């Protein structure tokens, strides 16, 4: 968990931010440090150099007596915050107002140990030791307590600042990371349960509307769709198995019967019957394949100009004959000069399916013949096509089911057909970007009829 926590983007971002803050603070520190302390030290150094120059009037070769005299004068004249030490060639102390060992030649910053002092209020010294030509060494120093305290102050405040920045950054990062990890954990737990088969499971939303909620909402919508598709596949699988069973079962019966027949003619008849059953099963699988191909959308590549008026007139003429033979009627009101871009073969099938659906199902309401009307007209830029029958119709709550694969409305399968007529028509309509809606044809609850309206948005002008 801890390793995963430190791999979360929240923690990484916080660490990165803290590092950035530290680097910038370090730059500021460096600028302030050299700007203040450096300048102060330079001033001190100049003073000290001046003092040394005043004592060593002839440089390191200044006679020892002159040096001693100079130190004495300086000790008498100078403020208490300038310090001198003068040792002779043998290391003996000749003069001075400091009680420390003579430092080595060069620049020094001396800081007193905790409770010691160099003089009253003096904790730190800045000074230079110079060897004299005739042996002996001169050390001149100034009070550097202020310098030291300032140095301490700057360092400490920056350290505290760094610490706080780092601390807040890390805590915030860990907090964010923890929160993110907890949300991700909830998502992955839900995901695991879903993978194990619980498709009703959804990812919980925190309600804050943050990016995780957005993500969860999208994933939930996706799950919704997947659940629907899975249910669909399951249903279709059941339907196919069911629909294939009946012809296969009858095929088995026919073959079994043929085996027991001696009469060649009877055997022939049984075999013909068997072939008929196989053809029914093949027809079903062909329709399923066809539907899948249409839904894949690849047919769009072969779209061309279709003279819809002529296509519909021709279908109307054909099905007038069929409808009359079934005891009904078909009337057509097709506007002239309707043209669109599409696949003529598929549009042919779509209209034929819709009319055949009206012929086979429209007449099942009791009365013998169905009156079917095929209409097509220009509506603004669109073409609106309708197929209306006066049959028993479809209850409104079952319209979606009727358009679904195998959504046959009588569970007993008493009626003919493979139940793919309307779904095929709907798929072809969708391929042509047409909307397909089902409504009741009239205001008669006993026999409402069915009106199928297709609206094509791609009318072409002549």
């Amino acid at each position, binding site marked *: 968990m801890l390793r995963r926590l430190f791999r979360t983007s929240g923690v990484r971002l916080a660490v990165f931010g803290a590092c950035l803050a530290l680097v910038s603070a370090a730059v500021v520190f460096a600028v302030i440090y050299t700007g203040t302390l450096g300048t102060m030290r330079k001033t001190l150094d100049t003073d000290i150099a001046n003092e040394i120059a005043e004592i060593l009037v002839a440089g390191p070769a200044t006679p020892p007596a002159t040096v001693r005299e100079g130190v004495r004068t300086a000790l008498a004249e100078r403020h208490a915050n300038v310090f001198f030490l003068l040792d002779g060639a043998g290391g003996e102390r000749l003069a001075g107002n400091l009680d420390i060992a003579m430092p080595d030649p060069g620049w020094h910053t001396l800081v007193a140990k905790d409770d010691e002092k160099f003089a009253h209020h003096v904790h730190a010294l800045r000074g230079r030791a110079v060897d004299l030509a005739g042996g002996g060494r001169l050390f001149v120093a100034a009070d550097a307590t202020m310098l030291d305290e300032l140095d301490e102050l700057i360092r400490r405040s920056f350290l505290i600042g760094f610490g706080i920045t780092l601390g807040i950054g890390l805590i915030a990062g860990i907090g964010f990371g923890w929160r993110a990890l907890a949300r991700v954990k909830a998502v992955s737990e839900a995901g695991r349960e879903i993978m194990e088969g619980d498709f009703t499971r959804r990812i919980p939303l925190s309600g804050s509307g943050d990016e995780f909620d957005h993500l969860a909402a999208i994933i939930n919508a996706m799950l919704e769709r997947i659940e629907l598709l899975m249910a669909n596949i399951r249903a279709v699988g059941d339907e196919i198995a069911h629909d294939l069973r009946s012809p296969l079962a009858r095929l088995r019966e026919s073959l079994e019967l043929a085996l027991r027949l001696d009469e060649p003619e009877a055997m022939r008849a049984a075999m*013909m019957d068997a*072939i008929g059953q*196989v053809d029914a099963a*093949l*027809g079903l699988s*062909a329709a399923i*394949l*066809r539907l899948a*191909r249409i839904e894949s959308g*690849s*047919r769009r590549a*072969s779209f061309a100009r279709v003279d819809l008026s002529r296509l519909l007139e*021709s279908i109307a*003429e*054909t*099905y007038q*004959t*069929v409808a*009359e*033979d*079934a005891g009904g009627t078909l009337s057509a009101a097709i506007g002239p000069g309707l043209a669109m871009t599409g696949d*003529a*073969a*598929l549009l*042919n*099938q779509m209209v*034929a*399916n819709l009319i*055949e659906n009206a*012929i*086979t199902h429209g007449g099942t309401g009791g009365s013998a013949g169905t009156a079917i009307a095929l209409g097509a007209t220009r509506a603004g830029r669109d073409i609106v096509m309708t197929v209306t029958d006066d049959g028993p119709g479809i209850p409104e709550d079952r319209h979606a089911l009727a358009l679904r694969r195998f959504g046959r409305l009588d569970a007993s399968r008493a009626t*003919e*057909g*493979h139940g793919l*007529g309307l779904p095929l028509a709907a798929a072809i309509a969708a391929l042509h970007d047409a909307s397909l809606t089902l409504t009741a044809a009239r205001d008669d609850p006993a026999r409402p009829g069915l009106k199928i309206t297709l609206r094509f948005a791609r009318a072409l002008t002549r």
Partner: protein
Amino acid sequence: MESGRGLRILLIEDDPRTVELVRAGLAPEGHEVSAAPDGRSGLLRAAGEAWDVLIVDRMLPGLDGLGLIRTLRGAEVMTPALFLTALGGVDDRVEGLRAGGDDYLVKPFAVAELSARVAALARRGAVRSDDAVLRVADLELDRLSRAVSRAGQPIALKPREYEVLEYLMRHAGHVVTRTMLLEDVWEFHFDPQTSVVESHISRLRARIDRGFGRELLQTVRGAGYRLGDAA
């Protein structure tokens, strides 16, 4: 039947069961069926010998059916060719026709369907399609005026009925299947769930046969329809 001549047919097909079925189905009609088991030998035989009809499987080892027909057509071998396809989408039909095939049939097929289509393909060159007047016995159809008469009496037909009759007369004496009518007259490349063909045939029969004694439009059981003097 008007032509009793058996046809020389080359079947390019790798499935021995299909070969057996086609042989068994076409031999009784007097046709002679030779088989090539793969695309390459099929191409050589199709180009090297004289055939009346080629039956070509779309999926073949060596060289696929589409490529085979395309190559043949490129070499100006115009022998009528029928594709057998297991795929059965409209896309495949269009592809097959574009490659130079003349007809197509989806596997599994009824032998009667194959037989009728092969015979129709073989006739294709021979049918005088530019004849203005078609005649079968005492039935006459004028393709320019679209007038139909039998024994001199004019018969009024609806446009679709006329088209069905013209198709049947162009294939007079031969079996025309339901699917051939659907595809060639209606341009329906799907299987209608209602009796589209049967309804039209019965209307047509009522108009051209009723009251004339001899029936010209016959139903051939398990196969389709035939227009002509009853044999």
